């Protein structure tokens, strides 16, 4: 029987064991492995990205190991050590410290969104360990490379170019626009660049409709849009804000503007489930265009092949943008390690510079007409993404870039 004394002793022993762990010697890792720390936001507000991407990432790394490991290192295996930063930037920085100094990882990767990237940058500089972020929209450390879309040449340029393309090549009458974006770090940054690009392209900016990321309802933002009645509402919208925005649009039966933007708030398949098919059909298939890094219907054999493989071989239930982006991260990591040919951190960092997955390569999973290659600012040279339109059967048609396109934009109605 457990009495108070036994319980107290047990809790104390557990706590002591945990606290004493820094003084316990760890068994040394075998030389035939390269240790990669993976910091994912498996809980907290960004968990959706990591929970979808993590199985795809593990699957690809597992496959690399089964197929002989890292060839340039005599078949060394990639060992993954996982951590959860609970979607909090400061905790992401703490995990970097733990993985590098305690687990002795050779390099790092993980979902690492922009705010986490900012938090870990000083720690990466201090500990001089290379890191690949799957999603960060920039890099503030020489030791960090990212597959994320740059706020300007990734998100803002793709969105502004699409607006210009609708107006100039497809005869859409778009003279005015309203920024409609999730009012958080990335949303604000992308909007700043969008304002410049849209202004330079001759679009008149009307009233802004920022979406309160803590709100339970976006009717207020939709009423603002309805009163301003811009030809186009454009911006970066998170899945949750997108869901509430589309609900409000349905409730107000507002179809006076074209809605365009990215990424999850417009393009995530979960919108159909969360909105319910009837509401989704009414709002997603009418006057709405979505930016995304992945679309299963794109004319890109390697992307379709990885979708089939993840579905049939890995038996993954959710294969969306996060899964494809994470699978791509695993391939980039593999190429960087192959190029480095050693566990030396400087060599691994240089390995990222040598990554060049060209268009047509079976390991290219994301929509990059110019392939995956890092620019001097440690972001991808090609920041482009798809614009798609939803069909009533929940499939997507790709509109841009034109080499992947399989449809023309649906006329305004």
């Amino acid at each position, binding site marked *: 029987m457990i009495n108070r004394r036994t319980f107290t002793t047990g809790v104390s022993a557990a706590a002591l064991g945990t606290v004493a762990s820094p003084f316990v010697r760890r068994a040394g890792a075998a030389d035939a492995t390269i240790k990669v720390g993976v910091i994912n936001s498996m809980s907290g507000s960004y968990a959706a990205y990591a929970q979808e991407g993590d199985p795809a990432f593990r699957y690809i790394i597992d496959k690399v190991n089964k197929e002989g490991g890292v060839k340039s290192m005599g078949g060394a295996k990639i060992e993954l050590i996982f951590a959860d930063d609970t979607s909090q930037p400061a905790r992401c920085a703490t995990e970097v410290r*733990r993985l590098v100094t305690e687990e002795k990882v050779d390099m790092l990767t993980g979902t690492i969104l922009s705010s986490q990237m900012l938090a870990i940058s000083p720690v990466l500089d201090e500990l001089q360990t290379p890191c690949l972020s799957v999603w960060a929209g920039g890099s503030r450390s020489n030791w960090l490379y990212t597959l994320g879309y740059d706020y300007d040449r990734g998100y803002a340029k793709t969105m502004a170019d699409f607006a210009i393309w609708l107006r100039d090549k497809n005869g859409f009458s778009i003279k005015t626009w309203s920024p409609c974006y999730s009012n958080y770090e990335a949303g604000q940054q992308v909007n700043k660049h969008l304002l410049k690009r849209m202004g330079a392209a001759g679009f008149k900016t009307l009233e802004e409709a920022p979406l309160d990321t803590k709100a339970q309802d976006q009717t207020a933002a939709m009423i603002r849009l309805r009163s301003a009645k811009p030809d186009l509402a454009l911006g970066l919208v998170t899945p949750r804000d997108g869901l509430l925005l589309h609900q409000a649009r349905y409730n107000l039966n507002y179809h006076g503007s074209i809605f365009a933007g990215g990424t999850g708030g417009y393009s995530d398949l979960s919108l159909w489930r969360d909105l319910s098919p009837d509401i989704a059909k009414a709002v997603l298939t009418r006057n709405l265009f979505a930016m995304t890094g992945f679309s299963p219907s794109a004319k890109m054999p390697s992307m379709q092949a990885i979708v089939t493989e993840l579905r049939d071989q890995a038996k993954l239930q959710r294969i969306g943008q996060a899964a494809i982006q994470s699978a791509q991260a695993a391939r980039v990591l593999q190429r960087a390690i192959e190029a480095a040919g050693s566990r030396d951190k400087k060599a691994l960092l240089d390995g990222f510079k040598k990554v060049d997955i060209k268009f047509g390569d079976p390991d290219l999973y994301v929509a990059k007409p110019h392939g995956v290659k890092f620019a001097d600012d440690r972001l991808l040279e090609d920041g482009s993404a798809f614009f798609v339109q939803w069909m009533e059967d929940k499939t997507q048609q790709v509109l841009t870039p034109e080499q992947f396109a399989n449809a023309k934009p649906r006329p305004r109605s």
Partner: protein
Amino acid sequence: MRPDFWPALRSPIPWALLALAATMPFLLPNYYLHILTITLVYAALASAWNIVGGIAGQISLAHSLFVGAGAMLASALLVKLGINMWLGMVIAAAASAAMGAAVSFIDYRFRLGHLSFALITMAFAEMAEIYVTNTEFLGGASGLFLPKDKGDLLAFQFGGISGVYWIMLGMAALCVVVNFAILSSPLGYNLRSIRDNENAAQAIGVGLLRNKTLAMTISAVLTSIVGTIYARYLAFVDPYLLVSPVLTIEIVLFATVGGLGTALGPAVGAILLAPLGEILRGHLGGFLPGLHYFVYGLVVVGVILLMPAGVWPSIRARFTRKNAQEAKAS
């Protein structure tokens, strides 16, 4: 000042403990030193909050406002205007003092009850977060990125983790001593009488506005200074961490578990819970998402059930009882 204050301060035990704590940068690996530094941040914050929440019994949920002022304002003054962070720290502390005094005045003017005071201060904290995340000068939602710490003390740089650890150790010790000094002074008696029965305290001549304002101002200034040092340590000044009402909830939790209204209790609570949370996440987070939260919650519930008055008062009571029994036996 109560007669036992100065002898307690001259006792070799706290100085020996402080000296031992100061050697940690030479003994601990980087990760654990980081956790200890964060623990000291929370120990200082919980002790500073205790002046208002524990001794005066005013459950303030606005302390993220003061942490945020210290962190965001001092950083913005440096990044946007080039103002030295030492001066920025003083300006932010003055601003925090003014805000703290204003909160106290509202409390006094409208005779808010405990629940109303808690809710109003929480509203202030929420407003502060919204204001900061939408104000370009303060970094907006993106926060601010401080220049690299090169160890230039005149520029408020402490040369990395060891330097910050020593500064935070001193700051945490100062916050505990301030608590002890207040508890040993007439101000402490006044605040406790206000906590126990505000009307009765006023009836015997305790000035509500003066004492509450003094307590809130001291607490706000200390909190703001800790906020500035914490921001310098993190280098990335994140509004969603430093101006978040969640931060205040954590501070209140540590103070409550450690022992509200005692000089050492809040620091003890932080020393127990802050590293536990970090280490549990580090060791369990990658294993099963959310498991560390579950275990942490179990430990907190267990401690509260076993020691409802708080860890420090329970330990003290046990020692006092033991000493009394020994004295009786002899």
